[in-house]
């Protein structure tokens, strides 16, 4: 906390001669004065205070203050914007800024996620909830905080839904500091000061009555505000004050302080060192089953191609659930720069499992082939009807299911003279399972 600059300090953070825009008797004025008193009490430098306001009558609060920063936001989002400011301030800057969020009961519900998230993260914010049980600025409609039987513009026969207990809800999100007060409590500013000073997420729900809309048709009065929940009296005062959690910014910095020191090995680029046998654009489809190294094998083909001075693109496809069903890669190799990455007619199709075969059938790949297409199909699979030459090989049996795709690729390259053996050997050496891959490449090239 920064010591106050005596020349700027006037004993209040409110504008000189401030006129509150609120109806007579409205609790908003009490709460706003309590925030001011809390700031004075904490002796904060005004340039280190940011008041983020929400929408509704509470949205006018920030403009009543002088010299502090203010951020007037969209409905319910105040907490999210302030979270962004605070994350940047605490991690990227000097963490000197105190962020106070003022929000109404309408905003608290539309932006409930942001409150829950900020509480869960333990972002260093102080949220003051102006809870007057309804939407005042738009004509007194009921809110999620309206008491049972409450008469509002939109519950003319009385509200049939009990109000939400935000504080209990935020306890479930592991909130650090939670308090519930009423607008006329003499010690309200002390509680708000404690919330602002608390190093982490703090929320003070302040109960009040909208003098314009709440007092009409309702018997509830200002001194009975804690009795809005059916069957129980709401707890007032500081309800939770945790001392065992770091605020998010501190926790983040602490974690990455150690990580930062680790040396990260950036992946090396691949410089061409071999030639290749590619004449025209060569389009290769590899199909198999998820988890059987189809896409990673295709990526090795791409790397081998780049190592051999070719250009290469790779597109993968699999069911949205990722870990099951078919797995498919489309690789295009060319001497020229590749712009169009689609495959109308493939030069090579490698199928290593039933899942892959089914998917290629549904994509009508076999119909799209021409006489020049080379099919390499695992011998366990039925041979589809198609143009082109078909080679049936015991890839799964001989090289295991997870080696089948790589074996098929190397075999295709060998048969069609696409890439040199050395390129596959070099790339295989870089892999974790290099022993298996080198053995596969060796066997394929040893075959007649």
């Amino acid at each position, binding site marked *: 906390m920064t010591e106050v600059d005596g020349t700027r300090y006037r004993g209040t953070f409110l504008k000189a001669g401030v006129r509150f825009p609120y109806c007579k008797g409205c609790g908003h004025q009490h709460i706003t004065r309590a925030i001011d008193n809390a700031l004075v009490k904490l002796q904060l430098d005004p340039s280190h205070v940011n008041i983020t306001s929400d929408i509704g009558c509470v949205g006018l609060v920030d403009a009543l203050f002088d010299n502090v920063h203010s951020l007037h936001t969209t409905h319910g989002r105040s907490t999210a914007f302030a979270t962004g400011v605070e*994350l940047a301030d605490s991690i990227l800057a000097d963490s000197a800024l105190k962020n106070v969020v003022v929000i109404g009961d309408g905003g608290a519900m539309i932006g409930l996620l942001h409150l829950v998230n900020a509480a869960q993260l333990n972002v260093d914010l102080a949220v003051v909830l102006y809870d007057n049980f309804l939407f005042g600025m738009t004509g007194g409609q009921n809110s999620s905080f309206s008491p049972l039987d409450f008469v509002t513009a939109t519950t003319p026969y009385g509200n049939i839904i009990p109000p939400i207990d935000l504080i209990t809800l935020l306890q479930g999100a592991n909130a650090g500091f939670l308090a519930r007060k009423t607008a006329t409590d003499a010690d309200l500013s002390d509680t708000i000061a404690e919330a602002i000073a608390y190093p982490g997420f703090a929320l003070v729900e302040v109960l009040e009555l909208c003098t314009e809309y709440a007092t009409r048709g309702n018997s509830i009065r200002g001194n009975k505000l804690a009795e809005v929940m059916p069957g129980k009296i709401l707890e007032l005062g500081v309800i939770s004050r945790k001392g065992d959690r770091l605020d998010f910014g501190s926790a983040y910095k602490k974690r990455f302080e150690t990580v930062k020191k680790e040396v990260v090995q950036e992946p090396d680029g691949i410089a061409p060192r071999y030639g290749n046998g590619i004449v025209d654009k060569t389009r290769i489809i590899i199909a198999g089953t998820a988890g059987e190294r189809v896409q990673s094998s295709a990526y090795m083909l791409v790397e081998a191609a780049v190592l051999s001075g070719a250009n290469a693109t790779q597109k993968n496809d699999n069911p949205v659930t990722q870990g099951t069903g078919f797995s498919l890669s489309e690789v295009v190799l060319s001497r020229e720069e590749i712009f169009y990455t689609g495959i109308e007619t493939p030069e090579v199709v490698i199928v290593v499992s039933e899942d892959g075969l089914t998917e290629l059938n549904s994509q009508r790949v076999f119909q799209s082939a021409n006489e020049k297409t080379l099919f390499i199909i695992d011998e366990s699979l039925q041979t589809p009807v198609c143009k082109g030459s078909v080679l049936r090989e015991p890839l799964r049996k001989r090289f295991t299911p997870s080696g089948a795709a790589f074996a098929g690729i190397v075999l295709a390259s060998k048969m069609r003279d696409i890439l040199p053996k050395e390129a596959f050997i070099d790339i295989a050496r870089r892999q974790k399972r290099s022993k298996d891959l080198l053995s596969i490449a060796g066997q394929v090239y040893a075959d007649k």
Partner: protein
Amino acid sequence: MIAEGAVEAGCRFFAGYPITPASGIYKFMIDKLPRRGDVAISSPDEISALAFCVGASLRGFKSMTATSGPGFSLMTETLQYAVMTETPVVVALVQRLGPSTGGATQGGQGDVLFVGHSIAGGYTIPVFSPSTPLEAYELTIHAFNVAEKLRTPVVLLADKEVAMTSENVDYERLCKTEMIDRKYFSQKDGTFKTYSFSSGNEVPDFACLGGMERVTATGSAHDKAGRLQKNSPETIEVLKHLQEKIDSHAEEIARVEIDLGEGADILVLSYGVSARTSREAVSSLRKDGKKVSFLNVKTLFPIPKISLIDAASEVKRVVVVEENMTGLYRSQIKSLFADKEVVGVNGVGRMIGPDEIQVAAAVENQRVRR
């Protein structure tokens, strides 16, 4: 490459929410930024993601998020807030097939008008569309530069095919680009107002939340000091200024790749993934002896009108290639080519092939193809 460009551009704050096909950017930033002492954080939804970024930018740091169509829908509220509060921020939108959740792993260029017209009141936000990894890198840096210089949100409109295709990239071909930072207010310039400008096309000097100047940021209609106002002359002036500052820089931020063919009577115009295919089609057409020009529109909005008109000045037909149903961008630029035949090559749920473009460019009196 978008993520690498962002880091190079000085992005120090990233908030992400997972969504195919944009999750790769999120993952890259989570791996990269914290090690540099910067922030990469998971947000609980897309509304929060962009709100975090706007907050961080107002605190003074270059910020970015990445999403796809469904997430962008949720972000439009905050995008408008960024326009109104003149907050620099970059949103990478990797398009998928729409509407709604559409096809997560299918490509598309269907968000063009949704993005270009996402701001109530008809305000323009700059929209850039890369077609290759190199363009993705360069346009991301450009997007940050424009966001900073004009204090505006910028959308980087990629698509699934461009973002999720792996390909070799020659790093030596990456252009060295100048990095631009927002202009900060200096006390010798007089009294600070959050949104101060003397003529409408000027960009107000920035001061950050937490600094010595008192910042009054608001998403509601306001005067130059950031005070809530209804219809005051100064407020109207501010509202007009928000568009003027973009319009007046339209040519400066325009990026187009023009490849004019000598004596060409056909112009193939495209962007994003379709520009790649178009380039291939144009090269085939030229091999066949056809005289064709090619235009890759990298700045979609504000529409680079002068470049577009110039590129088409000699041709009789403009073929607009894009992967959506009705020719979304074509509808925006058609009026620029009043004396020409404008035809579209469109596709939905599939990549457009080079053959279709060649046919559209070659056949006389070609009707609009769907």
